[in-house]
């Protein structure tokens, strides 16, 4: 009888212990994400123009629109990110030229102010991935010395994120 009681008690304890234990299981999942080098450059307008004006009354002609520049880039941590502009001199069909340096710009946001040149001029100098943006307001020096004509030039923006 004593043995039977012990067995019964042991079985009851075992049943209680089993019933009160919780079950838990783990599984793992590995996630991989590829982040490659990229660069994206957006200009708000494709062209701007300077209206003909009297040099005495308007010595500096503001362009028809500001150029909003948005430069996005992904690069390795610590790498330099640069945005530059360059332009050849303005020319017209008759052979007249106006030096590119006659055009300068004021800037806001992440952009630096500067003056156009046939060589690259830095608009943004930074490091690491990210987005940089700002507005360029182009201004051309109005000079009595210019020969008449319809002048144009193409400004090239280059975003580099090695």
């Amino acid at each position, binding site marked *: 009888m004593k043995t039977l009681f012990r067995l019964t008690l042991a079985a009851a304890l075992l049943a209680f212990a089993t019933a009160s234990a919780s079950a838990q299981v783990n599984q793992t999942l590995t996630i991989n994400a590829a982040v490659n080098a990229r660069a994206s450059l957006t200009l708000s307008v494709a062209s701007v123009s300077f209206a003909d004006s009297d040099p005495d009354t308007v010595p500096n002609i503001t362009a028809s629109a500001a150029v909003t520049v948005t430069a996005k880039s*992904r690069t390795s941590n610590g790498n330099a990110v640069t945005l530059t502009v360059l332009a050849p001199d303005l020319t017209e069909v008759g052979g007249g030229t106006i030096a590119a340096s006659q055009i300068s710009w004021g800037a806001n946001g992440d952009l630096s102010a500067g003056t156009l040149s046939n060589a690259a001029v830095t608009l943004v100098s930074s490091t690491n*991935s990210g987005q940089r943006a700002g507005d360029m307001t182009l201004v051309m020096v109005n000079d009595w010395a210019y020969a008449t004509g319809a002048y144009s030039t193409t400004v090239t923006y280059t975003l580099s994120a090695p």
Partner: protein
Amino acid sequence: MVRGFTIALSFLVSTLAAGPVFGQAASESNVVTATVNIAPLAKLNLSALSLTFPDTNPDTTPQVAAASGPLTITARARATPASTVTLTIRALDDLRSGTDVIPASAVSWTASGNGFVDGTLSAAADRAVGSWPTSGLHSGQQIFLFQNSWSWATGNYTVTLVYTLTAP
């Protein structure tokens, strides 16, 4: 004939031995207790061991879906009555590529299936994937999304996630 006598004698002896006085009705009952022990049990199956988010342009694809598609989860659990079966997920770390880091919270998911919920990864805390008030088989899907950003440094980032199914 001898065999019939023997059986009849045995019945008589056993009836007398049972105690009732001859001529009274005899009855006896007994019980058998059947005990089945159903302990808590949990099994978890994922349809894939890894997921990969391909490189894409953040402007055109701000949320990158995993290349392999949805992850199917099958959770089997036996739990004690009035308890809740839970499935959680935790990132063991942020996403890392060398010394570069993308926070685990850049990965989120949408879920389908009864009891499964949407969520965002965390390296600091368990996040609920699903919960159920009863034992049973619970199946659903997670669609993982990676927050694409121009701010991330280039690299191949990795993190390990741990799913935990608990049947209390």
